[in-house]
């Protein structure tokens, strides 16, 4: 944590409210996000218990698995989930615009431009917390290798149609979420914690209810209505309530954002309800005639309704909290603009690419990436991380302040501009600019620095420090002399506005604004033996082996 972030947290402690950690919104928020609040069964690997999902905050779809260990019921759940998620994805898949992409011509080996489709917008999935992102990935893994009866009539326990497809999409969302700055799949706690500093630790910020309590504590009046004037007057107290307060039956007032449930809920409410459901089901199976069966079907429906009510009672508060978080992000912070849009375009490319792979009938994502794919993914993540850090600093003075404190950027006033020219046949302008700054950049000899000029980076070279005049008061500031290197046009005289002028306030960074791609990796067929050699012919991966007592 940087010292500026630490200070913000301490201000939050002292004022009882979260403090800004950003002045603009650094993540793209779709106008029509799909919010997904899943719950899982404790102790099982990815056996869902239920979920609220949808794009309408007032009418979420409630999906419930009354007996999470039952494969049929689980498939029914996944099938319903596919019926909500896939149509949502499809609405974005059809609306395309023309775009160009650089490709290598297989015959000539030259880079050529190819006309391709690019989806005009992309879907956005929002889950409450980072554990939710992991759960999306887990669900994707559990479904994408399943076979439907249509694909393979022999398969035991065939999956309902579209469930494997949902698995491939969720895997893609989960994989994309690992790319820094992407917004296809967002965890609400991560986005909120990026923009506000609370008076608690980053570990405690993982609790959505507590995080929201710091950012937007419930007004005093609501707690007065509850007849409890002491509670929720500050973010700190509201956060504590959200974390720990329980009702008379020992249930948390603010249920965890999941997917894990509170053990007290499991033991006191859910387990008895599931037991009643199981008993009703056994009784129905043992019914001897139609009349008796009708009676017992009534019991079963009642038992199922009870579990549905329980699941809704634990997911609805989180559902509302996610939408509240969206409201806060939209109303309190303006979107950072061009850079966020640029990153979103990368998300659109990623979405379009996966749409095309699905349409082309390619097999699901493999369990393990081959060496070249894995190296490419890692390089892409590193590049995106550097890009994100640079862009956030350029978009947001508060982020830039952190970089200035770290000596990676400096801002100040231009005190002098001296024209100079490069040596050679055609002298080009190389003006010397002196900047007075209070910052302490770590400038090495001939270090390159950059400033943003109309959205493009202009480079300059560090020449040296100038001595302050004798009569100037010593205020700890330094005079930095820079030689401007580019973006001044082709002529002998620099283009207007391309060179800083005296009294301008400018900010230079020591880091580059745009990221270059790394060295090209060999083709998969050329993978060296040190990395496992060529991956060989791709064989479709077998589905997971199934056993009688499998839970998923």
């Amino acid at each position, binding site marked *: 944590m940087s010292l500026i972030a630490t200070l913000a947290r301490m201000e939050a402690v002292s004022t009882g409210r979260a403090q800004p950690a950003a002045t603009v919104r650094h993540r793209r928020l779709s106008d029509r996000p799909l919010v997904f609040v899943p719950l899982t069964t404790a102790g099982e690997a990815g056996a869902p218990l239920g979920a609220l999902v949808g794009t309408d905050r007032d009418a979420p779809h409630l999906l419930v698995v009354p007996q999470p260990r039952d494969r049929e019921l689980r498939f029914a759940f996944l099938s319903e989930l596919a019926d909500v998620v896939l149509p949502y994805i499809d609405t974005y898949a059809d609306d395309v615009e023309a775009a160009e992409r650089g490709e290598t011509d297989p015959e000539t080996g030259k880079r050529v431009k190819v006309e391709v489709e690019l989806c005009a917008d992309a879907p956005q999935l929002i889950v409450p917390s980072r554990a939710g992102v992991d759960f999306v990935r887990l669900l994707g893994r559990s479904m994408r290798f399943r076979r439907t009866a249509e694909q393979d009539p022999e398969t035991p326990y065939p999956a309902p149609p579209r469930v494997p497809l949902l698995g491939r999409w969720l895997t893609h969302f989960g994989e994309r979420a690992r790319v820094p700055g992407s917004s296809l799949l967002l965890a609400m706690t991560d986005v909120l914690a990026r923009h506000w500093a609370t008076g608690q630790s980053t570990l405690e910020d993982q609790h959505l209810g507590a995080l929201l309590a710091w950012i937007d504590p419930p007004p005093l009046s609501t707690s007065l209505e509850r007849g409890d004037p002491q509670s929720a007057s500050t973010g700190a107290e509201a956060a504590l309530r959200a974390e720990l307060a329980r009702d008379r039956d020992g249930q948390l007032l603010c249920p965890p954002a999941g997917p894990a449930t509170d053990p007290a809920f499991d033991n006191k409410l859910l387990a008895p309800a599931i037991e009643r459901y199981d008993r009703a089901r056994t009784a129905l199976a043992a019914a001897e005639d139609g009349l008796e069966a009708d009676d017992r079907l009534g019991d079963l429906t009642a038992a199922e309704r009870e579990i549905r009510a329980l699941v809704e009672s634990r997911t609805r508060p989180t559902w509302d909290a996610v939408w509240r978080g969206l409201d806060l992000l939209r109303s309190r912070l303006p979107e950072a603009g061009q850079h966020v849009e640029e990153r979103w375009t990368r998300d659109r490319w990623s979405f379009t690419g996966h749409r095309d792979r699905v349409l082309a009938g390619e097999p699901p994502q493999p369990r393990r990436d081959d060496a070249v794919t894995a190296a490419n993914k890692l390089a892409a993540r590193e590049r995106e991380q550097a890009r994100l850090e640079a862009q956030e600093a350029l978009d947001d*003075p508060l982020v830039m302040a952190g970089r200035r404190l770290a000596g990676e950027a400096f801002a100040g006033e231009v005190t002098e501009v001296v024209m100079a020219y490069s040596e050679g046949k055609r002298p080009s302008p190389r003006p010397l600019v002196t900047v007075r700054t209070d910052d302490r950049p770590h400038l090495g000899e001939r270090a390159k620095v950059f400033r943003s000029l109309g959205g493009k980076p202009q480079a300059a070279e560090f020449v040296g420090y100038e001595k302050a005049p004798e009569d100037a008061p010593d205020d700890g500031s330094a005079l930095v002399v820079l030689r401007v290197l580019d973006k001044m046009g082709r002529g002998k005289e620099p283009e207007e506005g391309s060179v800083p002028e005296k009294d301008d306030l400018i900010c230079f960074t020591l880091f580059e604004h745009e990221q270059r791609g790394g060295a090209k990796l060999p083709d998969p067929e050329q993978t060296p033996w040190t990395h496992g050699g060529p991956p060989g012919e791709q064989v479709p991966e077998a589905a997971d082996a199934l056993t009688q007592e499998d839970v998923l």
Partner: protein
Amino acid sequence: MPLPRTRGTALRHRLAELRGPDIAAKALDARALAALAANPGCKRRAILDGAGVNKAALASALGSPSVFGQSQFAFTRGNAFEAKVKADGGAELLRLVHEKLDRSAEPPAHARVPELTATGPEGRTARTALALREATETRGEWTLLDHPMLALDVAGSPAFLEPDAVVVHPDGSWTVVEIKSFPMLDGSADPAKVGAAARQAAVYVLALEQIAARLGDSDPAPRVRHRVLLVCPKDFSNLPTASAVDVRKQRAVTARQLARLTRIEDIADTLPAGTCFSPELPAADLTAAVEAVPATYAPECLSACELAFHCRARARASGAVTSLGRSVRAELGGLTTVEGVLSAARGESGDPDDPAVAALRRAARLRAEALGREAETLGNEAEALGHEAEALGTEAVAPCH
């Protein structure tokens, strides 16, 4: 005339007094071991664990109950999985040990599974030691010890541990087996959970090494393998799969931490006479007793120690900066309270030549500049809060344009 008490029995009596009359000592469970690794410097945790105090009951009595609980679904599933792994005389378990750790040995066609029941932890520990000795002497055979009881000397007092299983190989070496119910998905499991399991197993390895050293008085001491076997469900099924986990590093770290642990005796000596942590005492007395031992709270405690919410409330009330995270301390030099830091940042206190104070002031100035505020208002702006949201949108000017 009473016999002169030895140092050992004196300590044991002292710890029993701390625990309260007629309260049995609680064994050091996995959570306590994790807390040991997460926060070795905490004296409060050290003395409470050392004395075998039930910290969950204590936390409830203090009014800050711990939130640890286990869902019965997880419990049932975990037990069912462990039973499945150990079914049939541990055939599947031994097959996994043979396959993953000791392929050169004879495949385990049948194995000895000695009876380990006895009364009390001391009895079970003795029974386990005996079984280990016998198994080691019978060369050429596999032996499975199901839920043995081991004693480990923690800060001068024995802590009782119960691994899921210990396997004695035909060559007389010993292997710790950890059975966990989190899945191994495509050959890899959640690194955080594997790390916790490895730290736990490392403690068992240390305890076994102490037993081995005692057995080795006459013969060469039996070897305790430093690769333990982690057994987990495979993918989404209930079938066991296993992986050998090298715990040398965790073992070395834990051994060093155990050696450095403030001796419980020394902590006990600093407590006022009559201090007692019995959950039956009134909350005020308990609070005083707990306050008599200093704690080292950090947010990591929340996932490892039952008393964490009590300590957190105390840390927050005193404005300790570590309640915001351990890393926060690194840049703050000698400043330990939130108010101290803020007043130093505002320029109201602190030595400007202190590098930590100077950096703070620079940070405060830069932050205020970026937010379009005056640096002096830091933390004094309750009335300005309402306007902040609107101000942010309009006044923020990126310095780069």
